[in-house]
């Protein structure tokens, strides 16, 4: 069993798996169950000023399903906590007292003025919480009131509020970012300038999950109407991974610590976020789908992985893939691969053929007896056949060794690295020095 203990901006937890600020962390009962199940920490569902908000009394969630109603994406229009501030503060204090080894972060969202922050921060400190997370990401309801993503979409506001918070508390400050922007580095930069100890991302993505074609209304439908919600769950993971990586690999952001969020469902998802620079991860939808017990799979899975790799600390994973995230222009154009179909594994479904023939490069041949083979003369190694093949490892991309001739181009595969910046077709290319 590997040592999974985590130290994220000075906040210690027995493992790097936190529950994100969301419905599962709304009250003492849930959070105690989470800690009993083994979660390393929680970000308590966002507190606001009294009078507390109210939620709709109809559906709050909508879903996207895969096979067998496997939940792939969840959409949420729930607001921040709809309980009185003092109730939450009292419960936080009790839970932190009872579970001192777990991380207790409190998510906050108050109006964009310094006074409310000055008011609420001491109250949170008094609970014994380990840190605060500023909710600049909530994309529905609160943003209409000038909070949540309405702040997160304006870097100047992020910087300003972060600075107020830092000036009014000793606790570590994590700024939670909204993905509903064009360049995630701008809000991250603003948080850094404001003095944030870390950023967490992503919050949920503006979405309409589906439309009821009888009512002609968006789902979830409240009395015939629907409003966009925040999208989360496995479907958003690729978007979140990219945003985490964008921040992690930007040298101007000074390696600001990142708490990774977005569709994390398994230990492997968590490890991927960490490899792309997340110091720890936060989970919500997977817990909402399967219950708190999933953390046990995450713990055993990450532990086994670390043991198999000979890693002794989760910090050895963090950021390990970041150097390999680059820009397209720096990809090696001299690298040549060809698809290869393992005839022993092939079940002759023909999906690779249909995909390649109809939508790609006509690089797969089909014989009378349904044998499918790659035509190297046409194959550009696009990978679509690999992606649509239902059999794992049946089609693989095989790199061509330098010195061989690519039968598609007739050119010898060069051993040296060469990218677009020096390519003769690039009008802006400069001769290699």
């Amino acid at each position, binding site marked *: 069993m590997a040592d999974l203990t985590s130290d994220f901006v000075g906040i210690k937890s027995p493992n790097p798996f936190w529950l994100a600020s969301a419905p599962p962390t709304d009250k003492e009962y849930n959070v105690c169950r989470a800690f009993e199940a083994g979660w390393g920490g929680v970000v308590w569902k966002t507190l606001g000023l009294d009078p507390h908000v109210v939620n709709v009394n109809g559906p709050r969630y909508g879903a996207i399903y895969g*096979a*067998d*109603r496997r939940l792939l994406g969840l959409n949420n229009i729930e607001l921040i906590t709809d309980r009185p501030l003092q109730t939450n503060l009292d419960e936080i204090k009790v839970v932190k007292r009872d579970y001192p080894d777990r991380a207790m972060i409190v998510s906050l969202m108050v109006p964009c003025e310094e006074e409310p922050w000055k008011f609420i921060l001491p109250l949170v400190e008094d609970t014994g919480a380990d840190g605060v997370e500023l909710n600049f990401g909530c994309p529905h309801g609160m943003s209409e009131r000038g909070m949540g993503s309405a702040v997160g979409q304006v870097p100047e506001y992020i910087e300003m509020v972060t600075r107020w918070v830092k000036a009014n508390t000793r606790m570590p400050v994590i700024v939670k970012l909204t993905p509903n922007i064009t360049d995630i580095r701008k809000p991250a930069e603003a948080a850094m300038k404001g003095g944030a100890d870390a950023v967490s991302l992503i919050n949920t993505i503006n979405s309409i999950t589906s439309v009821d074609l009888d009512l002609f209304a968006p789902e979830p439908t409240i009395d015939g109407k629907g409003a966009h919600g925040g999208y989360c769950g496995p479907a958003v993971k690729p978007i979140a991974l990219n945003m985490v990586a964008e921040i992690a690999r930007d040298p101007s952001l000074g390696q600001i610590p990142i708490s990774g969020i977005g569709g994390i469902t398994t230990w492997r998802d968590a490890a991927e976020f960490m490899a792309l620079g997340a110091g720890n991860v936060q989970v919500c939808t997977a817990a909402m789908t399967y219950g708190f017990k999933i953390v046990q799979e995450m713990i055993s899975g990450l532990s086994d992985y670390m043991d198999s790799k000979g890693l002794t600390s989760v910090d050895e994973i963090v950021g390990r893939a970041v150097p390999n995230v680059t820009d397209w222009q720096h990809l090696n154009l001299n690298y040549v691969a060809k698809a290869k179909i393992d005839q022993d594994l092939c*079940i*002759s*479904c*023909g*999906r690779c*053929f*249909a995909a390649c023939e109809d939508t790609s490069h006509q690089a797969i041949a*089909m014989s009378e007896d*349904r044998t499918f083979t790659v035509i190297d003369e046409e194959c550009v190694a696009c990978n679509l056949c690999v992606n649509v093949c*239902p*059999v794992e490892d049946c089609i693989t991309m095989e790199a061509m060794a330098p010195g061989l001739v690519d039968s598609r181009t007739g050119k010898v595969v060069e051993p040296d690295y060469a990218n677009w910046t020096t390519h003769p077709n690039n009008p802006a290319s400069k001769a290699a020095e």
Partner: protein
Amino acid sequence: MSSDAFTPGIVPARLEAEAYADHFSDLHPRLDAHEALVAADRCYFCHDAPCITACPTDIDIPLFIRQIATGTPDAAAKTILSQNIMGGMCARVCPTEQLCEEACVRELAEGKPVLIGQLQRYATDHLQEQGIHPFSRAAATGKTVAVVGAGPAGLSCAHRLAMLGHDVVVYDARPKAGGLNEYGIATYKTVEGFAQAEVDWLLQIGGIRIEFGKALGREETLESLRAGHDAVFLGMGLGGVNALEAEGSDKEGVLDAVDFIADLRQAKDLARVPVGRDVVVIGGGMTAIDAAVQARLLGALNVTLVYRRGRDRMNASVFEQDLATSKGVRIVTHAVPRAVIGNGAVREIEFDYVDGAMAPTGQTLRLAADQVFRAIGQSLVGEGLPALEGRKIKVDDAGRTSLQGVWAGGDCAAGGDDLTVTAVAEGRDAAMDIHEALTGAAA
């Protein structure tokens, strides 16, 4: 007097009254909506899918499964029924494990094919139970076609002809339509009167009249049918039963399996269908299996199915063989009946064991038997028929016989497997050719 499994002789009511409904319930209960979605999701939507090639009626299986997966089972049903108007029955009785599901790439990959037959049933039931008939007739052509036999071949042909605008008269010897669907299939494969419901649904197309109790060579002649109609389709199946060439085979209790199966299907109360204590079924096809299994289900103590060759040569599929053994039927192979023994009624039956070349090995087998079912094949009956090929009517690819204006399909025609689905395909294809012959236009 009550009877049970141990009562000697051929008697009814061997079981408790409530056991019959259980024993003869649906072999494969229908998938519910969620099960259908899960099953449909397993389809890979193969390119030029092998399952389509394997289907005698060329149903676009990946398309109909995708239509189920996307919540449009009625569209799926139309995809099925436009190729196979008896898609509902075929979904129940097709040996899918030898056809579409054997060809399914997931059978190759995992040994677990997509449940094509059950998905087909889900779709066709969904549509048909709403009473929707998604086809309509073209403008009347003024032509009339006689169809002999209201079984799968005849009704398939009749429906397609009616759809193309022809008027059709179907002649059938029996009092009900459906042919083997109604009289020749095990009860647990088509429960709750489905065969008749399907016929009623099929006839909604209009333009089809059925004349019951009219058999070729009895009430009608081929000559009169040819004279009175613009074309004739022969789809009367095989009316004769092959005799048992064994000494004493005329003894009481030696019966035709097809009659036993028909009696079961027509029985209002299964408890009143008599069955032996020691039943022997001779044959290796679906009829033999259907008889043997149902004899067990009726409460026979010992049921032995005896086939002259090895299991691999049986016409009954492996699934059917396994079904039989799972119900307690003993399958004996490489044995040929030699003598039926008994004083008036059968008491025992003796077999010669034979080798692969059907030569007697010198060893014999004697089985107690108070009921023996012949299931060694059926034969074509009738006179003045078109030219034969072997023991069936010779046809070309379009179902044309040696006689001008006479087509044939289904079990009475040479070529093809004797399956419901094959009969439907042949009836359909003959109809298309008849249409072209009568109107000069390809449909």
